[in-house]
């Protein structure tokens, strides 16, 4: 019997070898030098990846859907509303804006909730098209995770404590237990700030957002630290929001914005200009109510170029010429997006602060669309 099965098995194995020889990929020409033989050297400068054939724009258009990485558990920014099954929030609306620009349909989005730990690999592997997940822009992330589109929300790191504990500054937290999420700049900034002040503390680190705040709420931590916007948002989920107060300290700069995978300039430009378009629209007074009217009747050359009535600027990006109209109709200008999700009518009532237009003393400044 050995003779009878050995021969066909040998044939099968030879066939497998031949098949695997065919499948061995030749490294793409631009990076053949980097691929061979230097695994143990010092970290080389990352070479931009060759984008998927035709670029990510073609990939998304072909797929007909934008895959957008979000938080999913942060009310006001990206939150899965249990009642309606919709993802609502500031970040979620920017996902819809990109979808409206590229596909013409703001609802053609697949929202993927990721934890702080998972978001980097999701981006690096190209699994998601864009990450809009309250992600802080840092140099390490710019070089290793992906390219950062303009900041949509200028934030800072803060500390939330219980009012009854009578804490007014970071020094009062000597010996305290502080809840924080893993894989965030928050974790690093906390260590830095407390070390600079010479304050000893014990971190309590969790990998998901719900567990972090639930543990703080239960009393296991004396304080919880994160971006101030996140603290405001999560305070509404506490069992007794009035018990908690956010300290006036700002521990770091946290510019939050969308991130796209490395190596695709055309896609990066598109996401970048979607953000700028919403800011420019607010500066020009274009809202979702009057955008169509302004497209048809405005005589202002800036507005005409922005809305595609004049010039071929949209085509240059690879989109429809009047893509800005689609975006504004879908989600509104920056001010509308902000007010709808974080403004006076919501539970958060966050002041615009640095998130106002440059003409009003804030940091939002869009380059000229021409």
């Amino acid at each position: 019997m050995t003779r009878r099965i050995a021969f066909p098995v040998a044939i099968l194995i030879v066939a497998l070898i031949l098949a695997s020889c065919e499948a061995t990929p030749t490294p793409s020409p631009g990076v053949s030098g980097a691929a061979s033989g230097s695994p143990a050297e010092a970290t080389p400068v990352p070479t931009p990846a060759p984008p998927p054939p035709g670029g990510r724009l073609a990939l998304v258009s072909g797929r007909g859907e934008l895959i957008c990485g979000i938080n999913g558990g942060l009310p006001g920014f990206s939150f899965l509303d249990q009642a309606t099954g919709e993802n609502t929030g500031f970040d979620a609306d920017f996902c819809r804006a990109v979808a409206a620009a590229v596909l013409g349909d703001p609802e053609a989005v697949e929202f993927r909730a990721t934890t702080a730990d998972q978001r980097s690999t999701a981006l690096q592997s190209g699994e998601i098209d864009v990450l809009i997940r309250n992600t802080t822009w840092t140099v390490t992330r710019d070089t290793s995770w992906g390219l950062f589109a303009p900041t949509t929300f200028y934030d800072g790191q803060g500390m939330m404590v219980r009012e009854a504990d009578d804490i007014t500054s970071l020094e009062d937290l000597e010996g305290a237990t502080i809840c924080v999420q893993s894989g965030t700049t928050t974790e690093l900034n906390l260590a830095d700030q407390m070390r600079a002040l010479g304050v000893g503390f014990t971190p309590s680190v969790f990998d998901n957002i719900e567990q972090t705040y639930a543990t703080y709420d239960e009393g296991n931590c004396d304080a919880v630290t994160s971006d101030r916007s996140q603290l405001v948002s999560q305070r509404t989920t506490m069992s007794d929001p009035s018990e908690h107060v956010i300290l006036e300290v700002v521990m770091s700069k946290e510019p939050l914005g969308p991130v796209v995978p490395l190596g695709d300039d055309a896609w990066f430009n598109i996401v970048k200009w979607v953000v700028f378009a919403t800011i420019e629209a607010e500066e020009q007074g274009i809202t979702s109510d009057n955008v169509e009217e302004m497209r048809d009747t405005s005589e202002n050359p800036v507005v005409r170029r922005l809305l595609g009535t004049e010039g071929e600027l949209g085509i240059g990006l690879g989109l429809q010429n009047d893509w800005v109209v689609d975006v504004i109709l879908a989600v509104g200008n920056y001010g509308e997006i902000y007010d709808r999700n974080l403004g006076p009518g919501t539970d958060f009532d966050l002041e615009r602060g640095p998130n106002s237009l440059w003409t009003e003393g804030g940091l939002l400044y869009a380059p000229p669309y021409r």
Partner: protein
Amino acid sequence: MTPTGSASHERHAPVPPWRDVRVLRVAGQVIVVLAVVLFLGFLATNLTSAMSARGLSFGFDFLDQTAGFEIGESPVPYDATDTYGEAYVVGLLNTLFVSVVGIVLATILGVLVGIARLSPNWLLSRVAAAYVELIRNTPLLVQLFFLFAILLSLPRVADTIALPGSVYLNQRGLFVPGPQPQATLALWLGLIGFGVVLAITASVVAGRRAAAGRPTHRLAWLGLLALLALAVIGWIVLAPMRFDLPVRGRFNFQGGLALSSGFTALLAGLVIYTAAFIAEVVRGGIQAVRRGQLEAARALGLSEGQTLRLVIFPQALRIIVPPLTSQYLNLVKNSSLAIAVGYPDLFKVGTTMANQTGQPVPVIVLVMGTYLTLSLITSLLMNLYNRRIQVLER
């Protein structure tokens, strides 16, 4: 008598190589090895080309960079200015600590439950069965969250339960006095050793005198008394151990030993979960011992306890040890769920490193390599033990 088909008379025509079984066997193995090597080579090339296409590099230089993050519990001194490598070692020590303690406790509990399941006492065996069935069939992560929630519901720090002996219990953990060995500890231990030798000598001499029929003058008891006296006087005079009492600070207890709620939840979860599986392994081992052994032991007049301890269990052990090794490995690997309860183990440090450095692949390789090493060491030790207890029945 004509020999039929006798090979010594006829010369067979030489068998062609493609039908010769010996050649085919060797060729088959060579081809399989080649195929596996080529396949692994394909995977490696694919990985390196895909990684460099995305601008990721493979190297372990990040281990020398500053970590920048704090670790909540650490058996060795650590702070944010140490390197990633040192942070990783802290995580490894935490994992080792919870794994070793978990293995010991899980074995004890598992053996007890396994034996209880075979008890003639109806209530005991049913309770043990219910425990095993419930715990085995629910996911470990869910059990961890459950235990953590229970521990969180203990009183807050402000309402700490104070137990006698300077022990404090609250939702953040159990705080006990921490032993701090002083310089004189070695001396005291030496004294104890001397006392033990004295006591053993005394009892041996007493035994000999008793066997010879001479009066022992209670030598054995005197020996024991001498040991006790040495221990007590040595303790008072030398003061070999100081205790660091936990003191209530503004937020937490400072000093002393702390068993945090995260560690306790993880340990309890792992022990309860793995003990359920170990109980089944033990039960299987005991039931596999031939019934004749049990009957012979009973016929000799051994009690139930003696039968179990002296006859059944040593034989059952030969069957129990290999699956027990698997359960220990499971426990070590399941300890990576520590992040769910906030305990900083090696997996947590690894994922933080992967995120902060932006190099997930080398970190994953490192983490996998570490777990592999831990598992191989555990199974090596268990296999050595297994070989010792394998009594050859030939």
